[in-house]
């Protein structure tokens, strides 16, 4: 069944969108990620203009993050204070990101930049995760368990000034790295159309030493606001949010997420992480191919963008 996307100005198949949303929802439920890093590339492979894929991806992320954050709110595993400081940074990063987005669109380098960011970040995160989870799987086979968090171990980040206490996270840390991390995620969110959970979660665990149990809830909490802000700014400056596309993806995603969550419970943590790592690497490789393989047509058309 065809459906016309009013902002993208094209007809697409509704079932493909629902299936895409459901598949990504399944994976996001299984791995506890927002799924933005999958949805945006999938939309681009499906010939949705990258500018619209990115802005709409940010909109779609809100639904899955909100759904997830509600569960964490109920369990009390959100550090609101930490989330708010991250969010402050996120707003700066996102505003800057939307501006860079428009500039790149005008220069005709947006697609390249988005692809490079995806390949670089997904490649790095995927490879690190794969190494970590394979080591964990090996260790599990030998029988010893090592936690992700090693308390008492401090790094240079904990020597910075302007320290602030975050009670829920049992953390006493400078606000500078928190703001910088928030800004970096906000920047990525607006350029890549992702929530940024796949970077936020490891960064909080390894750099800030936030306890694992509050990491995901807090990350989701701040992703809701960063993505919401990104969506609004994109909509106001670039007019690239396609709400029909977003709703189709969200409906599929929300339904897929519950089955994913059930499937996820049957697997162990390190197995899940290894699978997620493989998935992330696969997306990175697919995008890298487009960068390095000669395109079928070296010419392309784009509307004139005036800054």
């Amino acid at each position, binding site marked *: 069944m*065809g459906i016309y996307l009013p902002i993208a100005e094209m007809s697409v198949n509704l079932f493909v969108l629902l299936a895409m949303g459901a598949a990504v929802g399944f994976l996001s439920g299984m791995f506890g990620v927002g799924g933005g890093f999958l949805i945006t590339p999938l939309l681009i492979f499906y010939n949705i203009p990258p500018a619209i894929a990115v802005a709409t991806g940010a909109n779609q992320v809100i639904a899955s993050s*909100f759904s997830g954050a509600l569960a964490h709110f109920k369990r009390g595993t959100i550090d609101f204070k930490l989330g708010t400081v991250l969010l402050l940074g996120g707003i700066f990063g996102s505003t800057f990101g939307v501006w860079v987005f428009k500039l790149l669109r005008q220069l005709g380098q947006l697609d*390249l930049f988005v692809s490079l960011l995806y390949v670089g970040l997904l490649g790095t995160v995927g490879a690190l995760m794969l190494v970590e989870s394979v080591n964990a799987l090996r260790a599990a086979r030998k029988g010893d368990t090592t936690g992700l968090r090693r308390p008492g171990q401090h790094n240079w980040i904990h020597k910075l000034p302007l320290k602030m206490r975050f009670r829920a996270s049992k953390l006493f840390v400078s606000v500078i790295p928190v703001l910088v991390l928030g800004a970096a995620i906000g920047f990525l969110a607006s350029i890549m159309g992702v929530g940024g959970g796949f970077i936020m979660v490891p960064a909080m665990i390894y750099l800030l030493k936030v306890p694992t149990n509050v990491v995901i809830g807090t990350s989701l909490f701040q992703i809701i606001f960063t993505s919401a802000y990104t969506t609004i700014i994109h909509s106001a400056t670039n007019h690239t*949010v396609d709400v029909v596309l977003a709703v189709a993806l969200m409906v599929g995603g*929300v339904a897929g997420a519950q089955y994913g969550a059930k499937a996820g419970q049957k697997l162990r943590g390190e197995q899940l992480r290894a699978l997620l790592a493989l998935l992330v690497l696969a997306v990175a490789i697919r995008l890298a191919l487009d960068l390095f393989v000669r395109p079928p047509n070296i010419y*392309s058309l784009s509307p004139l963008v005036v800054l």
Partner: protein
Amino acid sequence: MAARQTGLATALLLLGCLAAGAQAQQPGAAVPAAPAEPAPQQVPAAIVESIQIGLSTDRISITSDFSGADLTIFGALDNADPLINRQGRYDVIVVLEGPMRPIVVRKKERVLGVWINTDSETFVSAPASYSVATTRALQDITDQNNFRQLALGTDNIYIAPLDRTGDPVKIDEFEAALRGLKRTSGLYSENISGVQFLTQSLFRASLRLAPNVPVGTHKARAFLFKNGIFVKESSAQLAIQKAGFEQTLFRFANTNGFAYGVISVLLAIVIGWLGRVIFRRD
């Protein structure tokens, strides 16, 4: 003889119909701004043929299930010479030209192994879509020079570069790429023998509207050739727009982007919340 021909002019049939997909709004608003060329009061000594086309509607709405459509335009010849007509020496070319838009053509080159947009050319106005229907292959109707003078056919539309003083070789290269890309996407199309004479004076042209046909004011034009010589042109306007809901959304997104963004966010939150209520995981 002459009287019979003026009779034909008044019996001019202006019809149009639209198949598949697109819904014609205001079907009652028939015989629109189909313009011009009032039938001459007195037929002059030398017979001058003229051509008329008409659309049953001046507005096509693209609904949410739009997947392209076939547009049929009817038209008639006035004062057609029966002898020439019998020999098949009248040719008609019907064009539906989309709104003019500025467009950028970019070219990729391999830099350090990566394909990067390195060069571009901006064109200030190129028709967003252009479909042609003809009675015969273009080269059989008249010669290339005539087409170029009339800017007729996907190869001959005039596309103005922003930088008129630029390198003409480069402009030609990018212009050719523009035409090629538009053809590949179905936006520029030629339908050879898409125009058929139903009677000696009445003809029907079938044009293809691509699924991604641009919205805006389109111009339908009909060109009449006699023995390879251009005789007359006639035109009519056609507005292609998004249907109610799509149009409202599009306009809202473009005029009030901030509020549109806020609503998109609220919608996402409601769906996320509903998802949590309906599919509770814990």
